[in-house]
């Protein structure tokens, strides 16, 4: 067993060995190292062929046309290109956008930037289950709304939004719909022929591909247009210039091929591991699952251990690689904005851990983790004055704390 055990597949995943193999074939002099844009020789043609195969593999995963896939450096760039690209291109049509409070920062910060440019943004509040409903979106759409951007799966809590239904609402009201699918593609079925989604962001490193590469789906029918954010040689039909990184794209393509072939079987296995983890935690008092339990991707669990602070919990769990919504693990000293938006109080946000299991997690790993978690929670509650007070029946909300 390799320590610490990796329980942070939501943050990133290791590259699958099959992916690494394909990538390594595109680097050296004897490999496929050419510039896909070189039209005058075999090196260029072969690289182009590899890149186009990869493009088809990405498209196949989400039932799209390869011509609808634009390569980017990752989901952050895809989000930027989608949101700024639409806002700028259609600014004469309207300057209002809709998103949610619990989007990834790549979406939220891009929206903030547009606000500074004079756009207006409505931030929808999810329910306490972390879900944004089609009704909420419908109610927020105005005459001048040009784009709705709602994530498919939330990166902190793993809750799944009904993007098919939100897409129907947007299409009926003739508003473009962008979906950040960085955390859903390769985990749950996405059919872009059926779903009324105009733009969708993807990332390779969440599905056992390399970091530094992603894609943006840009629908052809009905057509949507974007203003480029990166200018240059006119690659990717002018939407995203820059020499294509053959090895990266081939890696993402292979990762998508594997995901498509193995996703259903893998999700069952991963779901069983998550269930094993959850069952094993049941005997700990005062624990709460954050976000809807049923509408979530199979491998994730975000739990708050009341009266225990998240960072110290992580210190006790040094054999486990997990992440926390605690302020102390962030540079900003603010607890997770996602958990806050769900209505959790600061204490519960501080006490949260996110476990995400994946392709290389075993039952043995989960059992080891459970033993460590029990020890750590017991130890820290022994140390916690709040636990004492809770056990003595003191209502902590009635105490006047001196905030500092």
């Amino acid at each position, binding site marked *: 067993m390799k320590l610490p055990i990796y329980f942070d597949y939501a943050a990133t995943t290791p590259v699958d060995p099959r992916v690494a193999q394909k990538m390594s074939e595109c680097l050296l002099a004897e490999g496929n190292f050419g510039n896909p844009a070189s039209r005058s020789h075999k090196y260029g043609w072969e690289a182009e062929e590899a890149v186009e195969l990869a493009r088809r593999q990405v498209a196949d995963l989400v039932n799209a046309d390869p011509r609808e896939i634009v390569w980017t450096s990752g989901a952050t760039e895809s989000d930027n290109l989608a949101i700024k690209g639409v806002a700028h291109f259609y600014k004469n049509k309207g300057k209002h956008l809709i998103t949610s409070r619990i989007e990834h920062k790549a979406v939220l910060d891009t929206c903030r930037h547009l606000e500074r440019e004079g756009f207006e943004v409505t931030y929808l509040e999810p329910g306490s289950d972390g879900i944004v409903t089609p009704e909420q979106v419908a109610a927020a759409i105005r005459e001048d709304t040009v784009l709705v951007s709602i994530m498919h799966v939330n990166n902190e809590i793993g809750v799944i939004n009904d993007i098919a239904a939100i897409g129907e609402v947007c299409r009926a009201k003739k508003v473009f719909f962008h979906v950040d699918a960085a955390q859903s593609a390769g985990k749950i079925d996405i059919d872009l022929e059926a779903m009324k989604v105009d733009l969708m962001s993807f990332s390779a490193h969440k599905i056992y591909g390399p970091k530094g590469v992603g894609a943006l789906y840009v629908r052809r029918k009905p057509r949507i247009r974007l203003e480029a954010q990166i200018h240059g040689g006119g690659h990717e039909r002018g939407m995203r210039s820059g020499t294509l990184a053959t090895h990266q794209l081939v890696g993402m393509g292979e990762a998508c091929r594997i995901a498509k072939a193995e996703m259903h079987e893998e999700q069952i296995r991963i779901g069983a591991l998550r269930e094993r983890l959850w069952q094993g935690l049941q005997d700990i008092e005062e624990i709460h699952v954050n976000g809807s339990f049923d509408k979530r991707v199979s491998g994730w669990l975000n739990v708050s251990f009341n009266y225990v*602070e998240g960072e*110290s919990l992580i210190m006790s769990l040094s054999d486990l690689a997990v992440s926390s919504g*605690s302020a102390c693990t962030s*540079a900003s000293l603010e607890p997770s904005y996602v958990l806050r938006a769900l209505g959790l*109080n*600061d204490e519960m946000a*501080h006490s949260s851990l996110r476990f995400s299991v994946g392709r290389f997690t075993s039952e043995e790993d989960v059992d080891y983790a459970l033993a460590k978690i029990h020890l750590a929670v017991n130890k820290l509650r022994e140390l916690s004055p709040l636990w*004492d007070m809770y056990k003595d029946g003191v209502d902590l909300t009635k105490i006047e*704390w001196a905030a*500092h």
Partner: protein
Amino acid sequence: MAYSDKVMDHYDNPRNVGKMDDMDDSVGTGMVGAPACGDVMRLQIKVNDAGIIEDAKFKTYGCGSAIASSSLLTEWVKGRTLDEAASIKNTEIAEELALPPVKIHCSVLAEDAIKAAVKDFRAKHAADQQTAVAVGE
């Protein structure tokens, strides 16, 4: 977060964890911080007739540096007078534990905790002292 060996030592083997009866006249209790901010410290001191702190206990909800700061403080205050204990500065704690800048507030909280405990003890005995003065006259 990369913590110093001293923080890790106090975190792994916290000293003087526990609770004293806060109704006991010889005990002073300081509780500072707030759950919403992610740290709450409860520091208790037991003071003998000579005015010396003979025992100290703590419980802390908070990050590793908060736990280490309060654990260290319980070691430091034992055997000291109330004035000496109340004059411990957060900078001494931060220095001893080599706290990173973002964790300095944990040492501030520890300083607040001992000051609050001393204040609580003195408040309990303010009446006695007045009586003592009255008798002395």
